[in-house]
């Protein structure tokens, strides 16, 4: 490698000005050399594609034949009922699933943070376990559980919670319920671990003091735990948002977007536009930029909310 630091007999050398600037130059060169492989790869496989995608979103045509279409794709977006469907489904999943999951994760974490709780290790491991499974494996398992005569219906019938079996994956409403339950099952434990770790950093004496002052449990949770965890809650909210906006594996395997597009998500629609139908790459790129913009806007909003509440 180039220009390493001169060290043999160096103490006197280093005091001289020439050696010092040599050192600075070598730091510069090394700084670039260490990060260069990553920068080159990021340039090729991230920066270039995202710019290419932007350019492509102004192109029209099928397959590999492109021509400049101006705002044609954006106009097509506003008139495309399937896109509107995919967008509203994605936002629905986001609005329902993320709050439920984070709330559950927070509640489980605060229950498990109690050192006097019996069986703490077991509960923690059990609730965390789902995020060890691959998305494909668990989607398939859920598909079999929610079959028409499957175990979910059998159990609900036996408990007399329903009178007739629910046609989970063929009914638009219930298909959405299954998708939301599946994602919640997979990711609640994951988020819980973040909260648990953050709770361990909260000074116990704050709780003791509140307890002595007669602050009830729910108030301790709401006015001490939640504000203290704000940075972590923000982090999990942003990552869950980004994840849900890109939802693909589960819907592709559980319902394939059906019935009649009730669970079609933006990512699945992009996939269909590019690889399942006659490829329409330009339009698919436009749809993908909708996700980029949504992710950006929602992350910004969540960031601003968190900053605002801190005052």
């Amino acid at each position, binding site marked *: 490698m180039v220009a390493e630091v001169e060290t043999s007999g160096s103490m006197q050398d280093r005091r001289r000005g020439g050696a010092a600037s040599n050192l600075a130059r*070598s730091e510069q060169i*090394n*700084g*670039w*050399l*260490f*990060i260069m*492989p*990553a920068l080159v*790869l*990021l340039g*090729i*496989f*991230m*920066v270039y*594609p*995202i710019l*290419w*995608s932007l350019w*492509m979103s102004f192109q029209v045509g099928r397959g590999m034949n492109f021509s400049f279409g101006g705002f044609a794709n954006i106009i097509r977006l506003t008139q495309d009922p399937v896109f509107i469907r995919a967008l509203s489904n994605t936002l629905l999943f986001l609005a329902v699933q993320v709050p439920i999951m984070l709330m559950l994760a927070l*509640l489980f974490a605060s*229950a498990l943070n109690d050192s006097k*709780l019996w069986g703490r290790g*077991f*509960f923690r491991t*059990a*609730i*965390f*376990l*789902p995020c060890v*499974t*691959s998305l*494909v*494996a668990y989607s*398939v*398992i859920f*598909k*079999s559980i929610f079959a028409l005569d*499957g*175990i979910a*219906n059998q159990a609900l019938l036996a408990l007399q919670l329903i009178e007739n079996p629910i046609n989970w994956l063929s009914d638009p409403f219930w298909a959405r319920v299954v998708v939301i339950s599946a994602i919640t099952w997979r990711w609640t434990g994951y988020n819980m671990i*973040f909260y648990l*770790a953050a709770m361990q950093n909260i000074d116990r004496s704050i709780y003791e003091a509140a307890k002595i002052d007669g602050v009830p*449990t729910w108030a301790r949770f709401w006015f001490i735990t939640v504000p203290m965890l704000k940075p972590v809650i923000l982090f999990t909210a*942003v990552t869950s948002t980004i994840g849900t*906006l*890109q939802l693909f*594996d589960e819907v*592709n*395997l559980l319902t394939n977007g059906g019935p009649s597009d009730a669970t079609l998500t933006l990512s699945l629609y*992009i*996939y269909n536009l590019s690889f399942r139908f006659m490829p329409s*790459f330009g339009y698919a790129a436009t749809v*993908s*930029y909708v*996700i*980029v913009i949504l*992710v*950006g806007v929602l*992350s910004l909003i969540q960031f601003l909310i968190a900053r605002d509440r801190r005052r």
Partner: protein
Amino acid sequence: MSKSLALIGRALTYLALSLAAFVSIFPFFWMVLGTTNTSADIIRGKTTPGGALVDNIIKFLNSFDIARVLFNSFLIAGLGTVLTLLVASLAGYGFEVFRSRFREKIFGGMLLMLSIPFAALMIPLFMMMASFRIINTYQAVILPGIASIFVIFYFRQATKAFPSELRDAARIDGLKEWQIFFYVYMPVMRSTYAAATIIVFMANWNSYLWPLIVLQTNEMKTLTLVVATLTAGYTPDFGVIMVGAIAATLPTLIIFFLLQRRFVEGMLGAVK
């Protein structure tokens, strides 16, 4: 009064946690049980073990060239992990140890790129791979994921705990910068590497969308793709699928139980 209230609260907590634990574990139980039952029995919700285990395994082994599929999965996940760790730790170390204002700006830009969804990259990436003529190859699957911003960030955070005295001592001993990295930094940071190995390997092993796009023939398929392919079609054989699902889950499950602490540390690493 308040004592009995506390008791009720306690009972409710246990009830809720038990329910959550049951719901969390049940699908695993269902998967294991399913390997012993026929597809019809699984769909019918049969809760007792059956005698179809051997039959399911044989059918699974005959469905695809499973040896080849396992080889593909391990090669893609393994090689991808090694390269990701190497490139990302070099970068994380470089950003933290050699600071400059300009590089800090690059780093800030990279953090912004963290939120770029893969959906926006997959079409240009696919076209790029097509123009390189490497569709349906291992390199096409592995290359785009190597420079993971998340892992770079993780290594930069971890490097803050790397004692600068060690680096100074190594310099005085005449080691070159790359030697310091490979002979001092890497061994000292081995628990960081272990945690990163777990998360990166798992992500690669479970990856679905990108392999689905670039791997197009049966002899290139990974285990994840095989399980997905078995599920497609109108009459999926769930007994066979459960065998595949276990095979796909087992490596990560084993890693999890062997290295539970490190596993969790790895997941948390980036937010500290």
